C-alpha cells in the first residue's frame, strides 16, 4: 500500500509533523514502512502556457510553440503528439538540470531555435501518466505562469510505501491509514460533507433493485447521465504514484475513490441491465458458488459482489447512462467462497477478502463529489440499497486478564481512551473491572481479548512495555533430540577437522537424473504436485547427486581438491525420512606446497576411506557391488561399524565422472542414526612391551584379504594382538600370486615375549597358512 503525505493530509492535519516522524509512527502502530521517497522537481522548471503551436517547417513530427512563461515568452520546439495551443504545460528553461542529469541548453532543431523543453512526466522524474507531455490543470493548485513547478506541494509530495499484514483490510485506503494514524497523534479526522440537491429526477425512474433474503452483501446504487467525463491531473498523478493508473477517465476516478475511501465501487453501463422503457432491473441473489451475484433481467450474472464484473457491463465511451455501485461483504464470505480459480477475479478480491470499508454511503458520496467536480454529469436523486444488519461484535474484557497477557498493568482510563480513539465503544455493566467493547464494523479482525490487547499495546508502543524475565520451574530437558543434536555436531566438527566443508543442499532432486543414476525416488502417488522447477521435481533419496553437482561447479571455478560433506534428510520411496551424512572427495589430496613439490597425489580409495574413518572411527569394509549407476563396481565397499552395515564407500562411476567433468572422485553415504554416540569404556591393557614382525607372503590373487585376516585371527594364539597389511608387490615371475607384506603385533599380558616364543607362533601360523591357502613366505 502506497500513501502520500499530501493525500493523507486531506483527512488529517499533518502540518507540524515530518514525514520521517510519520514513518516512525506508522511502524510503531504496526503499519510497517518499506520505504520513504520524496519527489522534488528541480529548479528552473516552471509553469507555461502554449500561445501558438505551428508545424515545424522541416520536420513532420515536430511543432514550434510560443510559450508564455509569465515574465517572458519563449520559442520551443516540441515533439509530443498531444501538444495543443492553449494548454498549460511544464517547461524546463535553459539551464535546468533534469533528474536524469540532462542539462537543458539552447538548441537548433532542424534549423529552428528552441529555448527550453516542454516536459513529460517521466522527464521530470514523475511516474508515467499516458503518452506525451504533461498537461496541467488547477487540481494541483492555481496555475501561475512562470511559477517554479517545485513550489506545487501536491506534486512535490513524500511517498510512503507500507507493507500491510493481511488482517488490516481497514488500512487498504488513504482514509483508513489516516484513521489509524489519527490515534497515536491524537488528531481528529477531517470531516467529509457531501450535498445532494433534490432538484433532480428520482432514481426510481431508471433503476429498480431487488434482492432475495439469502443475500449477505450490502449494496448501494446511484445513477447518472453523462455529458462529459474527465479525470484530473491530481487524480492521474496520484494513481500513477500508487501504481493504479487506469486507461479511461471514469475508471481512474472510480479507482481514486476506492483508493481514497476503501469502499468497493463499480460502474455499469445502464444498458446491461435495461429491461424496458429506459428502466434497468437489478436482481441480487446468492449464487450456488456461495458468492452474492448481481443479475440482469435475463437472469444472467453481471457481477459477483466484491470479486468480478463481466466485461460487457463495463462502461464504454458511448454509454450515456451509468449505474454506480458501492458494495460490502464480510471478508470471510469472500475468502471462503472465492476458491473457484476458473473465475477471473479482479483487483477487488484483494480488498474484499481482507475487508473493505463497510460505510457504503461514504465511498459513494466521495465518488460522486469527484464526478461532480471534474466531469459534467446529471445525477438522479436518492439511491437504491440492499443492506444487511450486521450484529455488533462485543468483547467483554476483564482488566486482570489484560494485565496477565501484557505483563504490565495499563491504567483503565488509558485503555478506554485508546479504544475510543480507535473507534470502539466502551460500555460498563455491573462490575467496574469488566468492560464491554463494541468493535467498529471496519475492524472485522478483532474478535477476542487478545486482539484488544494488541490494539492497546500497538498504540502505547511495544517498546514502552517493560521487559520481564519469565519465572519458571527448572525442568530436565535433555531429550533424544538434544543428544542427536550434540552427536551430529560432534561428527560435523570431526569432518571439518579432516578437511571437509559442510554444505547444505535443497532436499529436492531431479527425477530424471535420479533415475539415470539408478536411485529410487518417492512413488508417483506420493510425489510433489507443484514442484518449483523441472530440476527440483522430486525429493532426494540420496545426498550424493547434489553433492556431485557442487563438486562439478567447484571444478569449473578452478578448484583442484574438493572435499564436501552434508548432513541432511533423504526420503525413501514411501517418503519416509531418514538423516544421512555423506562425503565426497574429488581431485588432489592436499594443496600444492613445498612438501609435495607442487605435485600432490590424487585421492584414491584408501586415502578416502582413511579420511572417513578419521570422522566416524574405526570400521571394516566389505566387498560390495552397489546396484546403481552412480558407483564404480570395482572400488566399492560396505561400511561395517560394530558389526552392522551403516552405508557405503565407493568411487564414482567413471561414466558419471566423465559426464560431470569430475576428477577422480570418491563418495560415502552413511546413516546418521547408525553412527555411534556411546560412552567409551577403557579396557585392560598389557604392561609388557609389544613385539612387531613383518612377513612377506606369496598369496594367490583370488584370496580376499578379509578372509585371510579372519582366518589368521581364528588360528593365532591370543598373543597376536593386531595384524594389518603394509605393502603389496606384484611381479610377473610370481605367476598368479602377489607378495603381501603383513605387520604382526605380538604381546602377552603376563610377560615380555622372547624371540623364541614369537618364532614359534609365526612358525605355527605359517604352517596353517600353507595348509589352508597354500601360502608361502616370499
Amino acid at each position, binding site marked *: 500500500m502506497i500513501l502520500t503525505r499530501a493525500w493523507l493530509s486531506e483527512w488529517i492535519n499533518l502540518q507540524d509533523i515530518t514525514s520521517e516522524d510519520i514513518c516512525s509512527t506508522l511502524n510503531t*502502530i*504496526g503499519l*510497517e*514502512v518499506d*520505504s520513504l521517497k520524496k519527489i522534488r522537481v528541480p529548479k528552473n522548471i516552471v509553469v507555461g502556457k502554449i500561445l501558438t503551436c505551428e508545424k515545424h517547417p522541416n520536420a513532420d513530427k515536430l511543432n514550434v510553440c510560443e510559450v508564455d512563461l509569465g515574465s517572458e515568452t519563449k520559442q520551443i520546439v516540441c515533439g509530443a503528439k498531444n501538444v495543443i495551443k492553449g494548454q498549460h504545460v511544464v517547461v524546463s528553461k535553459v539551464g535546468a538540470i533534469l533528474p536524469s542529469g540532462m542539462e537543458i541548453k539552447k538548441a537548433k532543431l532542424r534549423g529552428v531555435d528552441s529555448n527550453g523543453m516542454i516536459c513529460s512526466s517521466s522527464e521530470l522524474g514523475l511516474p508515467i501518466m499516458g503518452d506525451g507531455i504533461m498537461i496541467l490543470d488547477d487540481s494541483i493548485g492555481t496555475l501561475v505562469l512562470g511559477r517554479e513547478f517545485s513550489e506545487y506541494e501536491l506534486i512535490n509530495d513524500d511517498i510512503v510505501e507500507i507493507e500491510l*499484514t*493481511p488482517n*488490516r483490510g481497514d488500512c487498504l485506503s488513504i482514509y483508513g491509514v489516516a484513521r489509524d494514524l489519527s490515534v497515536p497523534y491524537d488528531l481528529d479526522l477531517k470531516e467529509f460533507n457531501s450535498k445532494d440537491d433534490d432538484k433532480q429526477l428520482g432514481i426510481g425512474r431508471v433503476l429498480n433493485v431487488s434482492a432475495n433474503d439469502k443475500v449477505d452483501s450490502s449494496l448501494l446504487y446511484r445513477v447518472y447521465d453523462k455529458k462529459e467525463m474527465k479525470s484530473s491531473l491530481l487524480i492521474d498523478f496520484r494513481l500513477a504514484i500508487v501504481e493504479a493508473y487506469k486507461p479511461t477517465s471514469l475508471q481512474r476516478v472510480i479507482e481514486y475513490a476506492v483508493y481514497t475511501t476503501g469502499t468497493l465501487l463499480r460502474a455499469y453501463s445502464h444498458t446491461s441491465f435495461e429491461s424496458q422503457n429506459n428502466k434497468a432491473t437489478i436482481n441480487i441473489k446468492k449464487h450456488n458458488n456461495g458468492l452474492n451475484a448481481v443479475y440482469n433481467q435475463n437472469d444472467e450474472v453481471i457481477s459477483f459482489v466484491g470479486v468480478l464484473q463481466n466485461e460487457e457491463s463495463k462502461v464504454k465511451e458511448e454509454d450515456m447512462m451509468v449505474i454506480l455501485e458501492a458494495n460490502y461483504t464480510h471478508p470471510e464470505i469472500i*475468502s*471462503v467462497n472465492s*476458491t473457484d480459480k476458473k473465475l477471473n477475479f479482479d483487483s477487488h478480491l484483494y480488498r474484499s477478502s481482507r475487508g473493505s470499508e463497510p460505510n457504503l454511503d461514504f465511498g459513494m458520496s466521495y465518488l460522486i463529489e469527484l464526478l461532480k467536480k471534474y466531469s459534467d454529469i446529471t445525477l438522479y436523486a436518492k439511491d437504491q440499497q440492499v443492506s444487511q444488519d450486521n450484529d455488533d461484535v462485543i468483547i467483554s474484557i476483564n482488566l486482570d486478564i489484560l494485565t*496477565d*497477557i501484557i*505483563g504490565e498493568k495499563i491504567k483503565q482510563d488509558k485503555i478506554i481512551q485508546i479504544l475510543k480513539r480507535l473507534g470502539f465503544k466502551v460500555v460498563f455493566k455491573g462490575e467496574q473491572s469488566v468492560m464491554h467493547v463494541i468493535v467498529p464494523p471496519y475492524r472485522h479482525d478483532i474478535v*477476542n481479548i*487478545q486482539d484488544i490487547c*494488541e490494539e492497546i*499495546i500497538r498504540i502505547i508502543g*511495544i517498546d514502552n*512495555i517493560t*521487559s*520481564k*524475565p*519469565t519465572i*519458571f520451574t*527448572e*525442568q530436565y*530437558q535433555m*531429550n533424544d*533430540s*538434544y543428544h*542427536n*543434536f550434540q552427536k551430529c*555436531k560432534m561428527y560435523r566438527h570431526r569432518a*571439518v*577437522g*579432516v*578437511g571437509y*566443508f*559442510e554444505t*547444505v*543442499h*535443497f*532436499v529436492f532432486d531431479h527425477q530424471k537424473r535420479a533415475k539415470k543414476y539408478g536411485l529410487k525416488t518417492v512413488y508417483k502417488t*506420493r*510425489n510433489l504436485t507443484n514442484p*518449483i*522447477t523441472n530440476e*527440483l521435481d522430486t525429493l532426494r533419496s540420496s545426498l550424493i547427486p*547434489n553433492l556431485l553437482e*557442487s563438486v562439478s*561447479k*567447484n571444478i569449473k*571455478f578452478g*578448484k583442484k581438491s*574438493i572435499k*564436501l560433506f552434508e548432513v541432511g534428510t533423504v526420503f525413501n520411496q514411501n*517418503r519416509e525420512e531418514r538423516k544421512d551424512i555423506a562425503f565426497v572427495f574429488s581431485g588432489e589430496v592436499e*594443496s600444492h*606446497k613445498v612438501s609435495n613439490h607442487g605435485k600432490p597425489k590424487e585421492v584414491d580409495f584408501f586415502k578416502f576411506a582413511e579420511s572417513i574413518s578419521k570422522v566416524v572411527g574405526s570400521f571394516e569394509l566389505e566387498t560390495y557391488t552397489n546396484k546403481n549407476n552412480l558407483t564404480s563396481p570395482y572400488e566399492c565397499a560396505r561400511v561395517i561399524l560394530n558389526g552392522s552395515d551403516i552405508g557405503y564407500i565407493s568411487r564414482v562411476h567413471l561414466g558419471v565422472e566423465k559426464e560431470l567433468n569430475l576428477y577422480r572422485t570418491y563418495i560415502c553415504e552413511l546413516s546418521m542414526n547408525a553412527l555411534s554416540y556411546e560412552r567409551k569404556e577403557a579396557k585392560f591393557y598389557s604392561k609388557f612391551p609389544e613385539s612387531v614382525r613383518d612377513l612377506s607372503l606369496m598369496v594367490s590373487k583370488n584370496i580376499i584379504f578379509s578372509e585371510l585376516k579372519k582366518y589368521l585371527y581364528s588360528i593365532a594364539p591370543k598373543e597376536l594382538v593386531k595384524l594389518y597389511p603394509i605393502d603389496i608387490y606384484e611381479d610377473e615371475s610370481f605367476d598368479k600370486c602377489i607378495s603381501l607384506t603383513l605387520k604382526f603385533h605380538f604381546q602377552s599380558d603376563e610377560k615380555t615375549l622372547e624371540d623364541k616364543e614369537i618364532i614359534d607362533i609365526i612358525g605355527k601360523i605359517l604352517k596353517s597358512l600353507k595348509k589352508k591357502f597354500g601360502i608361502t613366505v616370499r
Partner: protein
Amino acid sequence: MDEKSIKSCNSLSELEKLRVSIFGKKGYFVGQFAKMKTVADKEKKNFAQKLNKDKEYFLNLLNSKKMQLESQAIAIEMKKDRVDVTLFNSTSEAGALHPVMDTMDKIIEYFVSMNFSIEEGPLVEDDFHNFEALNLPKHHPARDMQDTFYFEDNMLLRTHTSPVQIRTMLKTDPPIRMICPGAVFRRDYDLTHTPMFHQVEGLVVGKSGEISFANLKYILKDFLKYMFGEVEVRFRPSFFPFTEPSTEVDISCIFCKGKGCRVCSHTGWLEVLGSGCVHENVFKAVNYKDVSGYAFGLGVERFAMLLHKIPDLRSLFEGDLRLLEQFR
C-alpha cells in the same frame, strides 16, 4: 702435553686423543707419577701437590672443552635441519562448518542454556499441523503469505517449523519450553528467496497468567544481544495467524549502526524475528485450557547472512568453496 692444543682442538676425536695422551696408561700423568719414586722425600709433598693440581686443571680443561665441542656438534646437527619457516603454506587444510548450520548451532546453544528443550518434527506434514491447528483455516488470506509445496496425497512440505509446536503440545502437558530448529519450504525462488531455508521456532507455555508479552520481550532482547552484541532492539506490532498480540522485532543495523545504508534500505533497522502471544485458537486446537504462552520464529539464513556479511542467499545452497573456504 700442552694447553694450547687442547684449547685449539676442534673435534671430539682429537680431544679424545689428547685425553689419552694426558691421562691414558702411557700418558703424561702416569709418567709423572712414576717419577715420584725418584723425587727426594722432602720434595715429594710439593711435587705430588703440584701434580694433583695440574691433573685437576687439565681434567677441567678437557671436560669444558668436551662440553663445548658436544654442544657445537648438536648445534651443527640442528642447523642441518634449518628451515625457512615462511615457506609454510599458510592456508589451512581444515574444512569449515556451513555458516547457516553454524549459526543454527549458536542459536540452539543459547536456548538450551536457557532450559529450552529441542524438539523435532517431520518435513512432510499434513494440513492440520501446518495450517489448521495454527489458526490458518482453509481460504484464510494469510495462507497466501506462504506458498506451499503439496504432494499427490495432499500432504505438504512444512512451510514453517510451527507444526512442531502443535506436535509437542499434543504429546505433552504444559509447562513447555521448547525450540524447534529445522528446514522449511516455500514455493518461492528468486534473489531473496529459496525454496528451502531454515528456521528456529520457540514456544513457551505455562499456566494462565504465567507467561506474558513482557516475558517474550525480555528473552528476545537478551537473545539478540547474545547473537549480535550491543544492538538496539525495536518491537513493531505485526500479524501472524497463530499469535496475538504479534510483533516483529528489528535490531539497529549492524552495518551502519542505525545511520541508514543499503542493507537496511536506509531505515537503520533490520527485521530479524517474528513473535507474539500464542493465539487462543492454537490452544483450542491442542485442547489446552487455562494456559498462556508465547512463540517466536526466526530465519537462520537471515541471521547467518547478517552475522557473516554474506551478500547472496542462493550462494548458501551451492556448495561453493569460494564462499565456504572463508569460514575455516
